[in-house]
Structure formats: structure tokens, C-alpha cells
């Protein structure tokens, strides 16, 4: 079978494509973006008419994937961990409806918060929804789990969650692929009431989910991704989930670990296997990339059994991603650092690109607010969040997708004036529109600046769903025409832009300013494509 050099993310896509995927749904978000992009760039997927355009947000993506599964086909929905919060409603309820065609939900977690506002562990969401969860340790497992995950999903008529973390998502290795399967024929669910979650039906569906729990547990006990490797030294037993196994192996010559090891890659946790390790060893070390999920379950409340070590007793740091050295220290090994980093080495945080349109927008906004003390600008998630740093210091919040408009509204309700929202074009369509409607309905005195750079820039330039018609959306939900302004964020228009900002900030109602200029990175890559004379795949 062919060998491919793939990122963990790409291995998931290839596994899904080979398993007969009919559609992938997603909103871009690091570290999950490459899963969908791989399908979009893959000739095989185009020839097989695999659906792969971006969704407006994770909730719409999840529901579309559920709809494709309803129609009998195999679907995948991908998001970063915080995207699963957005999609939580359909996600939780999809566990109650169950599925028809196989459905895999991919959540890419970001421990250490390389590109995120928290490091929540999606395995808890899997447990919450009471569905099987896969957690790959390497690129090959990422491929295999996507490939075989659809079978488990269809066998038990349940969506399955595939949880990957940043390190594996963005690491390449060789993957051996399997035989390509055909897509499912479309067919309706055999039970016509399966998807009607009226209380009387939902109670029945919930019982089915509960009754399936032993089968999910048994699948974990039998899973090739969960295995017990005996060791000669029983003074310690090690439970390792996901990618942690690699950091463990790294610390032993020829990967020869002297202790018994239980490697976990499929949930619910294989209790029988854990019980066996617990009975064999005098102490347990739990290594998990993320929250101490297994460790907490193992300890329970009373914890009067053998000693359990991990993130909760400080053997492993409570936060952040693992690495070989953290695991070495937990095992009592030395920490062999090379030379120290010289004192002159300073941090180099990410920053807005030279020529970025947001720079001109922030300059105008800062000046428009004049001598006003800080604390009036609510922002959102995208490149423009970098406006929090020097030399701009332009924004005062960044919480979740769309929160700029709604927080500005709430603050204005409390009398904080002016209240300004700064949001990107893609984030606006993701979760900003409904908040703007709230503000219009209350005639809240807020100014919403929608930075329109024609793309979803931070995640690498995906097309933005509202390109060219943001002003129409704003008008459509009731923002007055005379208080919607499209401006060109360029130095030469600074005075004009400043005047508009000042006037609208003074206006006691909802106003929208749309600084519109293409992202310089997107422009650069568009120009390069143009000169390559190669036909681009972008629509």
C-alpha cells in the first residue's frame, strides 16, 4: 500500500477519504484547519465530489455533517477545541439522535494555548455526550482511527469523536494507507422517528444511548489502540493516553520501558485493563496530554488505594502540553539541558504584517478616541487581536468568536460610553450577526467596526463567507443606512476615516464602519498565483 508523508491533520483527512467520505464540514481554526484544506486540495476528493467548502461556523458545520449522515453518507466535521463549544448543542444532541451514515467529529485541542484562549480537553466533551472517543498517538493512528472510526460509528449508529492535539496535528511522518472504500449510497434512517427529539421520543433515544454504554466500553477493551505492555519492574505502572506514549518511549533506550504500560487511544476508558494494571503495580503514573481526565477518575474522591501520580499531585505540571523532559522528570530521570539561553534573547511575539490594513484602522480608532482612558474597545478573534500589543494598545477584550459586539452592547447597557466593537469579516459572519441584531433591537449606542480584509487571515487565508456584502447584511438586520460606512484603511484617507469614526462614536445608536482592504498576505499569494499562470483551485 502507498506511503505518504503527512501531518497528523492530513492523516485524518486521508483516512476519511479512503474510508469513503462524502463530505467534510468545518470552520477554520488552529490546529484543525489543515484537515479540511487537505481535502480541498486533493484531486481524489474533487473527482469523487466530496463536499468540502467552509461553513459559517462550527454549529452550522456540525448540523450539516449530521444532515449528510441522516441521508446515509459518511461525514466528518472538524474544529478546534473551542469550536466544539460553539457546536455543543448539535453535538450533544447528535449523541441522542445517533447517526445513519458514519459520522466523525474531529476536535483539535491546543494544550499550551499556542493559538487559543484556553486549553480545554475535548475528551470531557466525549464523556459528557457519552460517545466513543479516539485519541491518536501518531500519524498512522490518526489515519487508522479516521479510517476505522466510520465503521464503529455505523456499527453502533453513534457519532464518534476524534481528539487530536496541536503537536500531532502539526507534525509530519510517513503513513501507510489502506484500500479505498466506495462512498455509501444515500439512504434514509430505518427508524423514521430517530431524529425527532420531541421529549417522548428523546427519552427513548436517550435510553438507547445509555444501553449502548457497555458496548462502547467493550469496544475500548478490544480496541487495537488500547494495549497493555507488561514490564519486569512492578514498582510502577504507567497509564499513557494519546501522544504521551511517545514521550515515555523517548526516555528509554530502544523504547524498552521496564514498567508495565497501559497505552490508551480509545474511550470510554478500558476499565478492565486499568484494573489489571492497578492490581499489578504498587504505584501508578498517569501521563495525559491535556486535563487529568483518567487521573481524576482513577483517584475518585477518596483515593485510599495505591499512590496515583500525575498532574494532580504535581508529578506532571497541571497545565500545558507534555514533552519528553516533563515525562523524564516525572520518572525521576535527570533534565540534561544544553547551554542556557543568553540573557539578551528577547521574545518575538507575532505581530501585524507590514502594510496590514488593520494598522491603519487602529491608528484612526486610537486617534478618534483621543484622550479617553482605555477600556472602551471590545475585540474579537483574528489577526486584529494583535492590536492588543504595542505599539497599538487598541483593544480591551478578546473572549470568544463574536463576543466583541455583544460585550460592547452589554457594557453600553451598563452606561459605559462610548462602547466600540472591533471584529473581522469572517468572525462577523461566524457569530457576530445575531449579536448585532440584539443591539439593533435595543438601539444600543455602540459602534461596530467590521475589519473587512476579504479573507480569514489568521488561519492562512480561507475564503470569507460574506465577502462583498457585509453592508447588505447589516442593512438587512436593521442598521440604518446613513450609519453604515465603508472606508479605505489607507494612510492617505486617514483624516477622512478619522472624521467618520468620531461622528459615529458620538452617535447614540447602532453604527457600523467597514474598513475594507485586502489582507497583504492574501494579496501577495494571489499575485504569486497570477504570475505562475497556473489555474488556481479557488473559486
Amino acid at each position: 500500500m502507498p506511503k505518504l508523508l503527512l501531518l497528523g491533520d492530513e492523516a485524518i483527512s486521508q483516512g476519511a477519504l479512503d474510508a469513503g467520505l462524502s463530505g467534510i464540514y468545518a470552520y477554520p481554526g488552529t490546529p484543525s484547519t489543515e484537515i479540511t484544506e487537505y481535502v480541498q486540495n486533493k484531486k481524489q476528493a474533487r473527482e469523487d465530489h466530496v463536499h468540502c467548502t467552509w461553513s459559517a461556523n462550527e454549529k452550522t458545520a456540525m448540523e450539516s455533517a449530521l444532515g449528510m449522515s441522516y441521508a446515509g453518507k459518511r461525514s466528518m466535521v472538524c474544529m478546534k477545541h473551542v469550536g466544539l463549544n460553539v457546536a455543543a448543542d448539535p453535538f450533544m444532541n447528535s449523541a441522542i439522535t445517533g447517526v445513519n451514515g458514519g459520522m466523525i467529529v474531529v476536535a483539535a485541542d491546543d494544550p499550551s494555548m499556542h493559538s487559543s484562549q484556553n486549553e480545554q480537553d475535548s475528551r470531557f466533551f466525549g464523556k459528557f455526550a457519552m460517545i466513543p472517543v479516539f485519541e491518536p498517538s501518531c500519524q498512522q493512528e490518526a489515519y487508522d482511527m479516521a479510517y476505522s472510526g466510520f465503521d464503529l460509528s455505523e456499527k453502533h449508529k453513534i457519532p464518534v469523536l476524534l481528539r487530536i492535539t496541536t503537536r500531532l496535528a502539526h507534525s509530519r511522518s510517513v503513513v501507510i494507507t489502506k484500500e479505498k472504500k466506495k462512498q455509501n449510497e444515500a439512504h434514509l434512517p430505518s427508524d423514521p422517528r430517530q431524529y425527532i427529539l420531541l421529549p417522548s421520543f428523546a427519552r427513548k433515544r436517550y435510553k438507547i444511548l445509555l444501553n449502548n454504554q457497555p458496548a462502547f466500553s467493550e469496544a475500548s477493551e478490544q480496541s487495537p489502540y488500547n494495549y497493555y505492555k507488561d514490564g519486569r519492574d512492578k514498582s510502577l505502572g504507567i497509564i499513557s493516553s494519546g501522544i504521551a506514549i511517545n514521550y515515555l518511549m523517548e526516555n528509554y533506550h530502544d523504547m524498552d520501558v521496564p514498567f508495565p504500560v497501559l497505552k490508551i487511544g480509545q474511550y470510554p476508558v478500558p476499565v478492565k485493563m486499568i484494573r489489571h494494571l492497578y492490581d499489578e503495580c504498587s504505584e501508578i503514573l498517569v501521563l495525559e496530554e491535556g486535563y487529568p481526565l483518567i487521573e481524576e477518575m482513577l483517584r475518585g474522591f477518596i483515593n485510599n488505594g495505591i499512590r496515583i501520580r500525575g498532574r494532580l499531585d504535581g508529578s506532571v505540571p497541571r497545565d500545558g502540553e507534555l514533552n519528553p523532559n516533563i515525562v523524564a522528570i516525572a520518572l525521576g530521570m535527570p533534565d540534561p539541558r544544553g547551554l542556557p539561553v543568553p540573557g539578551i534573547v528577547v521574545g518575538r511575539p507575532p505581530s501585524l504584517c507590514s502594510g496590514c490594513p488593520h494598522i491603519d484602522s487602529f491608528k484612526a480608532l486610537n486617534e478618534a478616541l483621543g484622550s479617553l482612558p482605555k477600556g472602551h474597545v471590545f475585540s474579537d478573534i483574528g489577526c486584529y487581536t494583535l492590536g492588543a500589543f504595542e505599539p497599538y494598545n487598541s483593544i480591551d477584550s478578546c473572549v470568544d468568536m463574536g463576543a466583541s459586539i455583544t460585550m460592547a452592547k452589554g457594557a453600553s447597557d451598563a452606561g459605559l460610553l462610548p462602547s466600540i466593537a472591533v471584529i473581522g469579516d469572517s468572525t462577523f459572519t461566524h457569530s457576530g450577526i445575531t449579536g448585532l441584531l440584539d443591539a439593533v433591537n435595543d438601539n444600543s449606542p455602540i459602534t461596530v467596526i467590521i475589519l473587512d480584509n476579504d479573507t480569514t487571515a489568521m488561519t492562512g487565508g480561507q475564503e470569507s463567507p460574506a465577502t462583498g456584502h457585509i453592508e447588505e447584511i447589516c442593512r438587512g438586520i436593521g442598521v440604518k443606512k446613513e450609519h453604515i460606512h465603508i472606508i479605505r484603511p489607507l494612510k492617505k484617507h486617514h483624516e477622512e476615516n478619522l472624521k467618520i469614526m468620531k461622528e459615529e462614536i458620538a452617535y447614540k445608536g447602532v453604527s457600523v464602519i467597514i474598513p475594507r482592504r485586502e489582507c497583504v498576505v492574501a494579496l501577495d499569494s494571489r499575485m504569486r498565483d497570477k504570475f505562475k499562470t497556473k489555474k488556481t483551485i479557488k473559486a
Partner: protein
Amino acid sequence: MKKDIILAGVGGQGIISIAAIIGFAALDEGLNLKQSEVHGMSQRGGDVQSNLRISDKDIASDLIPYGKADCIISVEPLESLRYLPYLSNDGWIITSTKPYINIPNYPDIDKILTEINRIPHHIALDADAVAKNAGSSKTANVVVLGAASPFLDIPYEKLENSIRFIFRKKGEEIIQKNLNALQTGREFAEQCLNN
């Protein structure tokens, strides 16, 4: 055979291309490989690194442990110092000396060079200037790769083949420019090693 390499630079400087060239050559040699990259926020002008691990045995971790890296290949001098705790005692630093200044508190370049010169095994060259002299200022990253090539345990011709493959769609002129850059970097390193 085992080579653990840390590639360092600033988002957009082309370290992923260096990783791809070495990676393709390593696979061509029948070696195992793991290569971890940075995507997302830091690509916007922040510090980025890639951990590239090559071995004839199975590779466990995607990340290189402290004190185990055989070399740090950096396209920027400040960035070459950021990962020193990962470098083994007899490891090499191969770095460009051309600073990329996009932060207000960028340290004095002479102080950075002094720190680089303190490292027992190092090769430092102004890759931008060398690349320009060799015919294309855009190939500075490949110049640095050329300077690192004596330390990779991969036959030089394999790296050349790799460049031909990776730039195959960009035309013969671009391939030739990159091959020149590789050669110029290589010659610089050999001169340093002979002195």
C-alpha cells in the same frame, strides 16, 4: 544513524522549505522521519521552529528532548540562540548573521554575534549577502542549508535531488538558483571546517 535538527527562524523566512528539502532526501535514503512544525498565530512574524528528527530506527517523540539536538539550523541570528538548551554538548549551530528586526527591543547585533561566537561549534554567515552574490536574494534559506549540509549525514547529491524535486514546478531557472545557493553555503562551511 540519528540526526535531531532544530530549524529556527521568524514566520515567513522559509524554514519549512529547508525541512522539506532535508525530509525528502531522508525519505529517499530510506530513513524514518518526524517533523513537527508551527502553524497559526506565530506565523505572523513571531519566532517559529521546526523539530526535524531523522533515524534509521523508529522515532518515538515528535519533539527533541533538551540536550539532544545534533544541530540548530537558523536563518536568523537572534533565533539561533533561543533553542540552546536543546543543543547537545558536541552539537553545531549553523546560522545566518543577518538580523530580522520586527520588534522594538531587538538586541544589539554585536552582542548577539558575541554570544554565537562563544558556542564551541558554530558556522555563521550572512546568508542574505551570500545568496545575493550567488544570484538570488530569495535563496538565503537554502544557503544556510548548504552550510549545514556537512553535518546532516545525508549525501550531498541527495539534497540536490531533493531541491530538483521540490522546486520542479517552478522551472529550471529557480532550481539552478537554489542549487547554486546550496553549493555556495556548502563551500562556506567547508572553508570554515578547514581553517
